[in-house]
């Protein structure tokens, strides 16, 4: 069975996920409402220009939307026994997980493109910067989607709310160390070290480069870091889910 054939089957899983999971309550709450109110809480009462707010807003939007579906899908499917249905189809395990990741990528990109478009239309963003931001947005969505799927691997629960809550334990600290609210250059040394292990730091840095022209790392380094994090999260998600699979279906 060819790689292309497996990718086609992964896309079939993506289409199924879009139909079923985009309208689920926890996805709307954790993916849209929660980051929206968090952002409001940060901005109201502060004298910061719209342009300065945009890198953080885009970073937070892509991070929360891309990680809102991944942690829930496999617990949902474990509970409804549909995960076993997928496993007994002629689809490689990696293709099943990739299908789930693609659905998060599309969700994350679709929502996050809104603040990027706002920046382009109202705050003056050149076309090259816009294209680079959109490309980095897609790459970051894949990275965060893979992280979301990885976070649902352990414990192998069949309760989506549990997986969502546990993933929040990782997600929220990441937002605070990734240059969303405080730029990396203003962090103390230890803060900069910690922020360097978060992929969100590099995406926020890309948007700061292109919107505010004052990024902390070099742009190619930002891209390389996101690519490496993506590869690690995808690999770890496949291996961890393979390991916990017998517990999910027994």
């Amino acid at each position, binding site marked *: *069975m060819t790689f292309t*054939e497996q990718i*086609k*089957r992964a896309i*079939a*899983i993506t*289409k*199924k996920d879009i*139909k*079923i999971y985009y309208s689920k309550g926890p996805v709307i709450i954790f993916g849209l409402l929660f980051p929206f109110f968090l952002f409001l809480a940060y901005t109201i009462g502060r004298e910061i220009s719209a342009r300065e707010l945009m890198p953080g807003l885009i970073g937070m939007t892509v991070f929360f939307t891309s990680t809102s579906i991944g942690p829930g899908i496999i617990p949902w499917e474990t509970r*409804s*026994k*549909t995960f*076993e*249905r*997928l*496993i*007994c*189809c*002629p*689809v*490689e395990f990696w293709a099943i997980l990739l299908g789930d990741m693609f659905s998060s990528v599309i969700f994350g990109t679709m929502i996050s493109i809104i603040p990027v478009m706002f920046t382009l239309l109202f705050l003056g963003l050149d076309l090259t910067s816009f294209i680079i931001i959109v490309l980095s947005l897609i790459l970051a969505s894949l990275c965060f989607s893979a992280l979301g799927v990885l976070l649902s691997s352990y414990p192998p629960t069949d309760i989506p709310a549990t997986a969502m809550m546990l993933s929040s334990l990782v997600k929220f600290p990441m937002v605070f160390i990734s240059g969303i609210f405080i730029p990396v250059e203003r962090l103390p040394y230890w803060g900069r070290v910690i922020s360097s292990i978060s992929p969100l730091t590099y995406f926020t840095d890309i948007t700061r480069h292109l919107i505010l022209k004052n990024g902390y790392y070099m742009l190619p380094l930002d891209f390389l870091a996101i690519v490496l994090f993506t590869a690690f999260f995808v690999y770890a998600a496949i291996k961890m889910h393979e390991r916990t699979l*017998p517990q999910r*279906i*027994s």
Partner: protein
Amino acid sequence: MTSPIKVDNLTKRFGEIVAVDHVSFKVRKGEIFGFLGPNGAGKTTTIRILTGILKPDEGKAFVAGYNVVEEPVKVKQRIGVVPEVSNAYVDLSAWSNLMLIGELYGVPKKERVERATKFLKEFGLYQARNRLVRGFSKGMKQRLLLCMALMNDPEILFLDEPTSGLDVESARLVREKIQQYNDDGKTIFISTHNMEEANLLCHRIAIINHGQIAAIDTPENLRLQSMELQYVEVLFNKPIKKEELMHHPEIVKVVPAGNKIRIYTANPSAIIEFVVEFAKKCEMRILSLNTMMPSLEDIFIKLVREHRENDFYRTD
């Protein structure tokens, strides 16, 4: 390909529990092979291994000519599975479920549409094709699962208790379809609790208990192996005590069954003569007299009991 399913020394453990214990068997092409056993006997685990969902700890299994551990995707491409628990997507319509399965098996779009239409009509679900599966009855869900299992035109069908909990009409439709698809050349591996169903459908039956195979044979040969379970059922015109009939050496036991008496024996003809003589001697009339072969249920209980006793002596 003479044996579409070949299992050799298959073993699966969950911690301390041995769910499948060195099981070996072969299923012939075009056969309906029944897998009978009490709850927790290892039926579903065996099916999960054969369908590539679980990996065995020991032994080998070949399905459609491929090793289930080494080439699971090739195995899955050639089989259809109806699991024990309904697992269609309840948030999708019946039609969307079939389209999804078609795509996951790589069935071209034109064929997907043709097959889905055909199966939905055959299984009486066409009118409900656009309804969400969430609103389906258990019978409808089970029929949809069979449609889903057939979407890739599989060589082999694995059915895990396909009629369990269904209403009489749905169960009969499912059985008819199993028979029909077997007549069309599909090999069918079916696990069931229903002895009558196994008797009606299966060419051969394996009885599994505590993860081990207790017997494999045709329903008829299993009956012949258990001749002591034959009985003569007699109704006299007046009640008698069962002890009055226990004087013949060929009688194994006497059991009251309503107003009748069941006399278990390996030699029914000798017992019929004895019963007739007994009736004459006691000046009674025989209102009915039947010789009964052991039911599959009798054989199943006997084999499972013997197996448990053997297990007990082995571990003692």
